[in-house]
């Protein structure tokens, strides 16, 4: 299964995503330059973290118009798996692949720390090997991660089970204290209706080895491998 990792100018987690595919999963991976029109036969697309276009205008706002995004949208439309991590989540929201938007953290500070998230939905390509309620510890590193959506869309997002991850405390409860960036309903990640596109602020590709503090991110990559091979 071939991973395609999109490199935008300012992406800085693309190599981590390549490592996740090649070293952790033993799968081939190719970096896709944002100006390309070709996914080069990739089965899975990763929109990695970073600061594409310097976060000019809004985080992700300009990257969504990169030529490769047209191909990524077509891939998603065909049911191909896509994950947006951190800046990639912001780009996926700006591109309309996922509902909502990410705003400045409620506390205004850039947050770089481990967080615990709870798996809310296992019917996605990226959580099929998780169990519902499973807690995962992964790092976050963002200044604009406060998930926001209008009231009507929030009703749909919650009603249709589009929330995939929530920030929780040590007891697995979505408390205000655990909601580090002030996201609506502690939302850390969402999916599209079909479940092939998932976006999240935490970094699973930086949680692949206990040496780095957590290996909880592996299950997302193992999930997509299992789903595509199924």
């Amino acid at each position, binding site marked *: 299964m071939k991973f395609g990792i999109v490199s935008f100018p300012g992406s800085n987690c693309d190599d981590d995503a390549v490592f996740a595919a090649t070293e952790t999963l033993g799968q081939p991976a190719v970096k896709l330059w944002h100006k390309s029109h070709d996914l080069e036969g990739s089965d899975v697309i990763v929109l990695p973290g970073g600061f594409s276009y310097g976060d000019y*205008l809004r985080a992700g706002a300009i990257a969504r118009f990169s030529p490769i995004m047209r191909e990524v949208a077509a891939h998603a439309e065909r049911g191909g798996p896509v994950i947006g991590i951190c800046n990639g989540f912001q780009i996926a929201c700006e591109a309309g692949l996922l509902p909502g938007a990410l*705003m400045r953290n*409620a506390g205004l500070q850039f947050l770089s720390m481990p967080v615990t998230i709870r798996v809310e939905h296992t019917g996605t390509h990226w959580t099929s090997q998780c169990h519902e309620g499973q807690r995962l510890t992964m790092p976050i590193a963002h200044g604009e991660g406060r998930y*926001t959506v209008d009231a009507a869309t929030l009703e749909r997002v919650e009603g249709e089970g589009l929330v995939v991850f929530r920030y929780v405390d040590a007891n697995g409860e979505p408390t205000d204290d655990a909601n580090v960036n002030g996201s609506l309903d502690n939302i850390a990640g969402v999916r599209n209706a079909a479940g092939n596109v998932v976006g999240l602020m935490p970094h699973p590709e930086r949680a692949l080895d206990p040496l780095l503090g957590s290996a909880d991110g592996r299950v997302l990559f193992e999930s997509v491998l299992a789903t595509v091979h199924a």
Partner: protein
Amino acid sequence: MKSFRVSVHIVPRKGLLDPQGKAVADALHTLGFQAVGGVHVGRHLLIDTTATDAAAAEASVREMCARLLANPVTEDFEIAGVSAS
């Protein structure tokens, strides 16, 4: 075609938490400007463009706002002015 400069204000949508605006308001209160009720921090863009007339220039910038300059989930925009340049 004539040249125009279109001025656009983009502000956080009403009712959404605006922590940046709140931080600025708090700082103003600390400085003694107790009369300040609220602050909203947004963006101000000056767009130089050509169009057949001012109305066309404004319409074009409205479309730019809808498609790129403002995020409809989180931001509102208003055309603050259109001037011949």
